[in-house]
C-alpha cells in the first residue's frame, strides 16, 4: 500500500474524533466525534485483513490468487451494527436533553440540582 495511507487515515480519524469529543461544546458534534472514532477503528480492522492485489474471499467462484482475510470483515460488520444502536440511543438522549434545556450547548446544560 502506498505510504501506509490507510493507517495514517486511521490515526487521523481517531484523533479528529477525540478532539471533537473533548473540545466541542455542541452535543451533536460530540456524537459526530464518537462516530468518527468508530469509523477509524473499523477502518483499522478492515486494513489489517487486506493484502495488496487480493480478491473477495468467496471460495466457490475464485479465479485463484490471494484473498482478503474475511474475519476482520465479519468483526467490522458486527461493530457497525453495534455502532448504529449506540448512535440511535445517543441521539434520542440528545433529543430529550434538548426538550429539557432548550439548548445543546454543554456549558448551559446542568447547573445546580433541581
Amino acid at each position, binding site marked *: 500500500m502506498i505510504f501506509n495511507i490507510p493507517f495514517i487515515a486511521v490515526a487521523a480519524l481517531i484523533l479528529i474524533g477525540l478532539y471533537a*469529543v473533548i473540545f466541542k461544546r455542541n452535543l451533536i458534534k460530540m456524537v459526530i466525534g464518537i462516530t468518527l472514532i468508530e469509523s477509524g477503528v473499523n477502518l483499522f480492522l478492515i486494513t489489517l485483513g487486506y493484502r495488496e492485489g487480493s480478491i473477495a474471499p468467496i471460495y466457490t467462484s475464485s479465479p485463484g490468487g490471494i484473498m482478503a482475510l474475511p474475519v476482520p470483515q465479519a468483526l467490522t460488520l458486527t461493530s457497525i451494527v453495534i455502532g448504529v444502536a449506540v448512535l440511535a*440511543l*445517543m441521539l434520542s*438522549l440528545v433529543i430529550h436533553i434538548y426538550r429539557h434545556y432548550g439548548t445543546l450547548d454543554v456549558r448551559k446544560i446542568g447547573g445546580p440540582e433541581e
Partner: protein
Amino acid sequence: MNVADLIALLLQHSPALIVAVPLLGAFITPLISRLNDKVRNVFVILTLGLTASLVFLLASDVFTGNIHTYIFGSQDLALPVVRILFEVDAMSAFMAIISVILSLVAVIYSWSFMKENTGLDKYYTLILLMTAGMLGMELTGDLFNFFVFLEITSISSAALVAFWTNKAKSVEAGFKYIVISTIGALFILFSIALFYGQYNALNMAMIASAIQYTFLDKIALVLLIAALAMKAGVVPMHMWLPDAYGKAPSSVTLILVGATQASLYGVFRVCFTIYGGAINLTPISVGWILVILGIITMLLGVAMAIIQTDFKRLIAFGAVAEIGYILLGIGTGLVVMLNPEMTATGLAAMKGGIFHIMNDALDVGLLFLVAGAIYYATKETSLNKLGGLARNMKYTTVFFIIGLLAISGMPPMNGFASKLLIYESTYQLNPILSIIAILSSIMLLAVFVKVFHAAFLGPALPKFENVKEVPKSMLIAMGTIATIIIIFGLFPELIINNIVEPAANALVNYGDYIREVIPSFAGGV
C-alpha cells in the same frame, strides 16, 4: 432419561444457557406484558431464577477445580478462529454468582418500587438484556465476544440510567454514561485489532499462549486497562459514576454495581490471564499501577463523600472508595506474585480483594436499596430535608444500620472479613498502604454515621408524619441482602475456603486456563 442424566446434560450446556435464557426472556417479556402486569413480573423473576439456578449448578462444579469450555462453531480446535469459545473458571463463576444475585434482588425490589411508572415492559426487557450482557462478559473466553457483550451491557444500562426521562438530570447522566462507555469500548476494539494483527487469534487463551510483549502489546495493555478502569469508575476516570449511580432508579443502580464489577473482572482477566505469560517481565510495574490507582480511588472517594448532601450521590462516592480496596488487594497480589518469599501474602491479598468484590456489591447495593426506599416513602433525597425517619420506618432503619456497619468494615459484618485480609497483607508489602486503607474505612464510618443521624434520628418532622414503611417486595429484597451480609460476616471462613480461594487460585495459576484450550502450553505457575 433419569434426573442424574438431565442434570449432567444441563451442566454440559449451562454456559450457553446462562446467557441464552435471559436473552430470550428479554424479547418474550414485551409479549407477555400485553397479557397482564403481574404475569410479566412473575415471568421475569422466574427467568432470572432459572438463570440463577443454572449459575449455581455450573459454579458448584467449577469450584471443585474443573474448567468448563463450551464451543460455538467448529469443534476441531486445530482450525483457527472459526468458533467462539466460552470458558468458565472459578473466577468467572464467582463473578457470575454476584451478577445474578444482584439482578434477581433488583427485579424483586422493582415490583413495588417501579409500580407507578409507565413503560415497564421496556424496563424489564432492558434489565434482562443487561443481565445477559454481564453474564456473557464474565463467561466468555473470546476477546471480540467480550467486546460485544460489553456493548450490550452499556447500551441497555445507559437506557436504564435515563429511564426517568422526565427528569433532566437522569437523561444527562445517561448521555454521559453512554459517551464514556462507547469511547472505552472502541479503545478495547482497537486493542483487539492489535492482538488480531499480531497473533491471528481472538481467543484469550490463544493470545495468552502466543504473547510476546512487543511494543504493540504494551499499547494494547495500556488501552485495555484504561478503558476497563474507566468503565469501572476508577479515579481519575470516575466522573460519570456518581451521576449515573445517583440519578438512576435504585433498582437499576443495584445492577449497575454488577456491571461496574464485570468491567473490573475484565481488568483482572487482562492482567492475569492474557498478559500472564508476559507478566514475568513487568509484574511489579503493572501491580504498582493498580495499587496506586486503588489508593487514589479510596482517598478521593471518601473525601468527596464527606461533602455530599444528596443521599444517593453520597453512597455513589462510597462505592468509588470501595472499588479502591478491590484494586489495592488484587494489585498487591500482582506485585508479590513472582516473589517466592511472599507467596502467602500475595494469596491473602488476592483472597481479600476477590472477597471484597462480593462484599462491595452487597454492602453498596443494600445502601442504595435503602436510599431508594426512603425516596419511595418521602420523595426526597436531600439529606438536609430528611430527618426522624426511624420513627416511621423501623425495618428500613435496621437494614441501613447493617449496611453502614458492613461498608465501613465493622466486625460482625462481611466487610470486616475481607478488609482485614487486605490490611494484613498490604502491611507486609508496605505499612503505609494499610494505614491509608484503615484511615479510609474510618472516614467511611464517619460519613455514614452522619447520614444515619441526618436521615433517621432527630426530631419528628411534621411533613413526614404520614410516611409509612415501604411495601413487602422491597423489604424482602433488602432483607435478602442483609441476611447474606450477616451470614458472610459470621462464617467468613466458609465462603473464603469454598468460593474465594478457588477464584484466587484461578487467577494466579493462569496456565490452567490456557491449557484447557492449548494443551501443549508449558508456562504458568
